[in-house]
């Protein structure tokens, strides 16, 4: 019995696959890879898997998180290779590492920050976008109505936006970087930020790319204040270092 944590890429080929469909896709790839999946007990056994915060539909992700249990110990490098061979184009395993044996079930509960690159393609003026960003960051509160949730509610987005910058501005393309709160204690969706910027227009195409998800408690711990870290690093895995 061993628990593995892995980081995977969700590329443009599969960006329209919903989180639920992605789960099933990875489950099937694991069965094709003939990994000895550990199944839950009960009438409807299914593999023991858990995912980091779901990506919004249409978004790509550079370093998404997944944990799963195998019935036997295995070499993480081999697990990665076998799984990679069975994933459809657009899905790719970055790294696989063994979770510490004392860790019962990884649920990524501490993950509470996500960084997005938002690419706006179309006739937009970078100056205009910059001034909207400034306005947005200076606002005392940014109330947004969430109709899809039950109960319906108003949420103040402002404290959930940690940072927002224009990182690239071309003729018909502006790229923003947004660091947003995420996870079970409340989060901002990148689409909501775009809505506040007034960029949800018919002549604009918006691309969302998540560069990574993080645990801010660890990122802001005294020794590493202000340093953004890859999730894996803070778990003692083979991380790639901060951004």
């Amino acid at each position, binding site marked *: 019995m061993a628990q593995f944590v892995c980081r995977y890429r969700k590329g443009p*080929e*599969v960006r*329209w*696959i*919903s989180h*639920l*469909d*992605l789960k*099933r*896709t990875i*489950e*099937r*790839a*694991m*069965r*094709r890879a*003939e990994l000895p*999946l550990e*199944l839950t007990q009960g*009438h*409807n*056994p*299914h*593999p023991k898997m858990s995912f980091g915060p779901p990506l919004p*539909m*249409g978004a790509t992700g550079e370093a998404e998180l997944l944990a799963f249990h195998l019935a036997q110990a295995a070499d993480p490098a081999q697990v990665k290779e076998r799984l990679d061979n*069975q994933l*459809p*184009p*657009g899905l790719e395993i970055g790294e696989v590492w063994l979770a510490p044996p004392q860790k019962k079930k990884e649920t990524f509960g501490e993950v509470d920050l996500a960084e997005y690159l938002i690419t706006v*393609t179309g006739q937009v003026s970078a100056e205009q976008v910059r001034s909207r960003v400034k306005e947005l960051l200076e606002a005392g509160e940014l109330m947004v109505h969430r109709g899809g949730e039950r109960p319906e509610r108003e949420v103040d987005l402002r404290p959930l936006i940690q940072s927002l910058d224009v990182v690239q501005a071309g003729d018909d393309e502006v790229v923003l970087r947004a660091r947003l709160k995420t996870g079970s204690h409340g989060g901002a969706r990148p689409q909501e930020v775009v809505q506040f910027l007034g960029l949800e227009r018919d002549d604009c*195409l*918006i*691309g969302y790319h998540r560069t990574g998800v993080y645990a801010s408690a660890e990122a802001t711990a005294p020794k590493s204040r202000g340093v953004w870290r890859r999730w894996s690093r803070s778990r003692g895995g083979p991380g790639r270092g901060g951004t």
Partner: protein
Amino acid sequence: MKDFDFDVLLSRVLKPARYTNGEWNAVHKDRAAARVRVALVYPDVYEVGMSHLGLQILYHVLNSHPDFLAERAFSPWPDMEAELRSRGLPLTSLESRTPLREFDVVGITLPYELTYSNVLNVLDIAGIPIRAAERGENDPLVIGGGPGAVNPEPMAEFFDGILVGEGEEAIVEIAEAATAPRRAEKLERLAEIAGVYVPSRYEAVHEGAGPRGAVLPRNGAPERIERRVVEDLDAAPFPTRQLVPFLETVHSRVTLEIMRGCARGCHFCQAGATCRPVRTRSLETLLRQAEEAVAATGHDEISLLAFTSVDHRDIRELAAKLVERFGSRGIGISLPSLRADAFSVELANTIQRVRKTGLTFAPEAATDRLRRVLGKQLAEHDLFAAAEAAFASGWNRLKLYFMIGLPTETDEDVAAIGDLMQRLARFGRGVMEGKQGRLRIGISVSAFVPKPHTPFQWVGQDRREELARKQAILQQTLRGHHLKLSWTDAGTSALEAAISRGDRRVGRAIEAAWRAGARFDSWGEHFDFARWERAFSEAGLRMEDYANAALGYDDRLAWDHVSCGVRKEALRAKVEAALTEGET
């Protein structure tokens, strides 16, 4: 289409994964190297079409051939249709995003009458003239096939050719025919293929209102189209590298076709009457295919497809072996078609040790007398024996299928459904001592639809008012704890009957309904009966002449030029015997 435009489309529609492709086992062949390029179209939304085994078989057969290439397309959901039309974009294939009109052959499944408006819509969005007569040298050959082909007349004017029967072998011959340089020669070669009906070579003669009349060959075409049959099912090509959709489809599982055809011969059943003879796949072949398909797909369920899977001669051994090999891996086995008897339940127990979902039985009628009329070999004590075995071994959900509007049916027969179900629920409570609260019996009641090539093809369907009256009887008599009643819409059944027994003129009504906006008629939210009534009258026809009229045994019928292996006299003998049986 540029990627940018495509992404804009995807960002505006529901379930964009319907249109993106890239599924596991999708085939991407070099278009330039293929001698014939075929678009395989299922005229319903992706999730429905991807659950259709026939499409996967043809996809596999064509793509396994060095000279041919097949790609897929499905009906765009209305949101995508609106986006495509407002931008003037044509419908494309999934794999290479090539407009359908640039293929050599567009093959469209005719799964069921209520998809016919979608067939016209797909052609139109693709920019292909909907009528065969209006197509030119640059248009693809449009070929139909599937269950609906046994009465090709309502769709005859929209197709260059319609394959009646099984496609594994014929599809290769059809693709070969498409290599001829000119359209006229292609049609000529199509007409030479056994089982292929080329409607432009026939003239439809009508004899009064309704489907009476004949379809007569012009200059030398064969008088009758014999349904194409694959002789050796065991040797027939079968895809084990089945496509694995990202989206949850109607059936996300490995499908093994264990058997083709049905030996039972219920008098209403078109599938059973037309798909003959009964052929089975051998145990060895099926076990090999199961291993290959599980390895190639990663699915966690294997479904044993057949009209009645329990009739396979080796079913007990097959089930046991599959459970032995796959059970420990968390892979379940399912039987979509059970007989209502104790043997079936015992079999279900063998295979569903892993997952206990509900059991489904189809008694069709609630009295022994009416079941005898239907040729349904099931006695009431069989049903109770099945239920007892099911409840005793821990199943607590049953689903039962019935029909109303059957020949010789009385109000007592209808009320008997309610009585039978209440007795079944009481019986269940007794058997399930202590767990009665979990008992659920779902009762699904559809209206009888007379279908060509069945013994009941001459019988008229009950009028809609009559069906509504019988539904009211059901509602009054079928009450009680644990029972949940549902029925199919009477208007939907009326249209199904009118098209099912339609002649060539009915094609005009289908076109008029489509022009008036008919789409996805099998989806309740899109179905508008009044629109279809108007469409029939616009075409100068009355729906009741096709759906409700009783036809004479000596009448010539619009589908008599198609032969499914059973002579009309034999069908007549069966219906006459059945109706006599009903009097006793």
